[in-house]
Each structure stands twice: as structure tokens, then as C-alpha cells.
């Protein structure tokens, strides 16, 4: 059944902007992205919004809905009370371009800073074999759709612009964890660089990244904390360090 929905939509650009009130029709089963499109079609023809698949798989329509980082295409209108006003803003951790569209290029720069998978030189393409249990572990991390909601909600960069230089963010910690846990990856200094170059030590485990992840990746429990423990192995635990020297192994085989 259709109803009128009260919304506040942030309009503006990098220099100025503010919330504008709008009343829009919402139909049963619709999501926030549907009503934003209706606003765009009927009342704000120049409203900028980034979107693509409308199925929660492309990660394009990331925005903040009532202050919480979410995918607009996966947020049901029915999840709000009838009298509730829905406030929609762009991601607040990144520079705004126009209206609901932000410049997320920070994330692509950080992606380039993570060294790619290093294949063993003694294995030709096609010769590599992995057991299913080893594949499954990193499979969870490969569900990432790069919506950057985790990056947006992470207070290390959201609340401290100056940390963007030295902090990669949760999305790239799962990438580093995936590679460090890969049985065939030959680059063995990922633990050290996670701490020294990608800022793993700045994470204080408040788990907001896990809370907002639309793919329900357990970013903190399965990637960040395991990486922190691996960093302790090579950097802060003298007994683990001694063990690695005595037994002539990295400690992770």
C-alpha cells in the first residue's frame, strides 16, 4: 500500500550544502534507493546518486541512512516506523562531489599499496593446487563487494582525516589477511608491513566495520584480530620470535 514518506536528503557539493525536506510516495516492498529514484524523477531532477545493480552486489549505492552507513538498495522502507523521517546523506568519511555522491578514490589508492599475490616461482600457471579447507578460509574475504561502508564507519579515518596517509582501513586488512593466510603466497613480510605501512596498530577493535558489512564478513574477528596476533608473533612476542629462530621456520606453515 502506498504512503507518503517524509525524507531529508542532503544536497550540495564540496563547498556548501544542507538537508532538504521532501515528501515522496513509497510503495510496499520498496527500498530507500527506489524512493530516491522517485524523488529524482519527480522533484529533484538533478539529484546525484551513485547506483548500479540494485541487488546489494555492486556496492555502489553506499550512503548514510539515518546516520548509519548502509546500502540504499538493501534498506527496506518497511524497516522504518511510518511516522519516521528518513534522513539520507553521503558517506561522511570521504570528500563529497555532489549530493549523495562521494569521492572514494582514497580506497583505490590504498588498494594499490597492497602488494598483489606472489605466485611460487617453481610452479607454472595451472600447476598450483589447494585443498578445500585452505580455500574456504579466504573465501569469506572474497565476498567483499567494495561498498566501502567499513571504511566509512571506521573512526580512525572518519574522525581523523590526518590518519588517511598511514591507515589502509578494514577493507584492505581483509585483503592483507587473505594473502597472508594464502598457502601459496610467497611474499612473507605482509605481517610486518601490515603494522608498519598499512597502520594495523591503529585499529582499536571497536568492530564497527563488522557491524556495517552488508556481506556479513566478520572483518574484525576473522581478519583484523588474526592479523594482529600474527604481528605479535613477529614483532612483540620474544618467545614466538625465539621459537621461529630455533626451529628455523616462520611460525606459520
Amino acid at each position, binding site marked *: 500500500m502506498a504512503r507518503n514518506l517524509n525524507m531529508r536528503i542532503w544536497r550540495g557539493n564540496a563547498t556548501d550544502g544542507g538537508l532538504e525536506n521532501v515528501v515522496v510516495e513509497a510503495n510496499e516492498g520498496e527500498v530507500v534507493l527506489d524512493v530516491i529514484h522517485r524523488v529524482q524523477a519527480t522533484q529533484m531532477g538533478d539529484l546525484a546518486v551513485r547506483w548500479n545493480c540494485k541487488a546489494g552486489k555492486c556496492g555502489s549505492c553506499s550512503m548514510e541512512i539515518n546516520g548509519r552507513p548502509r546500502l540504499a538498495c538493501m534498506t527496506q522502507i518497511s524497516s522504518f516506523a511510518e511516522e519516521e523521517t528518513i534522513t539520507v546523506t553521503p558517506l561522511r568519511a570521504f570528500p563529497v562531489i555532489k549530493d549523495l555522491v562521494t569521492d572514494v578514490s582514497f580506497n583505490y589508492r590504498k588498494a594499490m599499496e597492497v602488494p598483489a599475490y606472489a605466485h611460487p616461482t617453481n610452479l607454472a600457471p595451472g600447476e598450483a593446487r589447494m585443498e578445500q579447507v585452505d580455500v574456504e578460509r579466504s573465501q569469506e574475504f572474497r565476498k567483499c563487494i567494495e561498498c566501502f561502508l567499513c571504511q566509512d564507519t571506521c573512526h580512525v579515518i572518519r574522525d*581523523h582525516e590526518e590518519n588517511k596517509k598511514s591507515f589502509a582501513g578494514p577493507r584492505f586488512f581483509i585483503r592483507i589477511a587473505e594473502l597472508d593466510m594464502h598457502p601459496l603466497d610467497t611474499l612473507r613480510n605482509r605481517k610486518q608491513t601490515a603494522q608498519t605501512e598499512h597502520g594495523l596498530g591503529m585499529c*582499536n577493535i571497536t568492530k564497527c566495520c563488522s557491524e556495517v558489512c552488508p556481506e556479513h564478513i566478520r572483518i574484525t574477528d576473522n581478519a583484523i584480530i588474526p592479523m594482529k*596476533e600474527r604481528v605479535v608473533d613477529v614483532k612483540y612476542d620474544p618467545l614466538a620470535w625465539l621459537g621461529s629462530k630455533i626451529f628455523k621456520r616462520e611460525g*606459520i606453515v
Partner: protein
Amino acid sequence: MSGVFSANRAKISERTLRTDRWWLQPAFIVLVLSSFIVYATFRAFENDNYFSGANSLISPFYSPCLSKACVEGASMVGTPIGILHIFGATVSPSLFILLFPLGFRLTCYYYRKGYYRSFWMSPPACAVAEPHKTYTGETRAPLILQNSHRYFFFAGLVLNVFLTIDAVLAFRRPDSSGQMHWGHVSVGSLVLLANATFLWLYSLSCHTCRHTIGGRLRNFSKHPVRYRAWTYVSILNHKHQNFAWISLFGVAFADFYVRLVSSGSISNFFFF
């Protein structure tokens, strides 16, 4: 201006636009943890009412009792630590052991989330701007010491063994001549048993335990036994937050119960 109020970000004057009661959880954690800290501090310094020989009950705050200041019969493994005095007062035996469970919980990955959010407001809740001007995380002292969690974890395991033995010993009852007999169950023995169980669950669900058991491996398929153990610990690890709270309440309640019994406020009811 920094953070969400930086020049190039969307101009929004509010620190957060969240409409839910995001402050409730941090407020609750402050209340509960503060209450526990006050109670535990009082009990650690009280140095009394922690052992009931007639009921084979000892408070988890005082076990193992390692000081010569321990009351007779409370010590299980001897008293290697002499009686110390500070400003004329005897140092409580509790202070020699509480450092380890305190350190374990203080450096625990779950509690870190809890107190960083609620006490330090860094951040107070997700997508709620924090009040601090700068942030360096756990990269420098004192927070870099959070990396010592594994040492407190192993110390905690040792204490768990002692508390488990305490629980087992509590299934005894003295006869009229003072001779202890096994096979008796009292409220106190069940309280100590529950406390030990909760502490084991909390320890075994720990992220460091998960790492040590198998998480540090790169190749699960080459270590099938450790991989299997890792899957079991991972199941527990899902509930680490729950075990953290349950064990905290459990240890406080066990101590409170022993205090009531040993001070004579209540008698320890024996089922048989």
C-alpha cells in the same frame, strides 16, 4: 576542523544523525564495569571473608592463596610469598594474583571494544563522531601493551586450573570429627563449578587461543588435528562476548557467595 567536519566533506553540523538510542550500550557498559571494578577493588583489599574451611569454599579472588598472610587452610600450593606491609597494613593475598585475570580482561579483544567505546568514546558508537582531536590507536605506549594479551591468556589458564581444583574440592563435607568426605553437593560447590566452567569457556573462546590452536597456520590441510581444534575454538569464539560477560558476573557472584558464607551471613546449603 577534522573528521566529519573536514572542509571537503558534506557540510553537516551534527556529530551524528543516528536516531536510535546508540548511547544506551556504552552507558550500560560503563555502569556494569564500574560496578564490578568498585566491588572487586573492595574485595581485593578487604583481606577477610574469603575462605570457609567447613564448607571447602574459597573465593576466586583469593585462589590460589600464595601469601603467608592467608588464613589457615586456604592455601593449596604453599605460601611462597611472605607477609608484606604497606603503610602499616598487610597486603592482601588477593593482590598477588588478581593482576593476571585483570590483565587478561583488560587486554581482551572484546573488552577493548567495550571500554574503548564506552569509557574512552573512541568512538562512542558506530558513525558517532568521537570527541578526541588526535588518535594513534594501539601504536604507542601505553596501548601498545595490548599486544601482551597472550601472556595473560596463558596465566589465566593456570588460574583456571586452580579454580577448577577449588570447585572439585568443594564437593566435600566434614563430619563431626572434621574428617572430609567426598561426594557431597552444596550450593557453594555448584557456584564454584559454574564459575570455573564460565572461566574456561571465556578462556577457550579467546581470540589468542584461536590463534594459538590453529589460526597462526597458513596451511590448514597440512595440520588436520589443529585445524579441527581451530574449528571448535572458532565456534566458541563466536560467543566470546557472551562468555566475557557471563564469566564476569560468575566470578563476582562466586566471590559474593563465599563472602556471605565465610562471614556467617548465610549457611551453605548441602543438597546431600
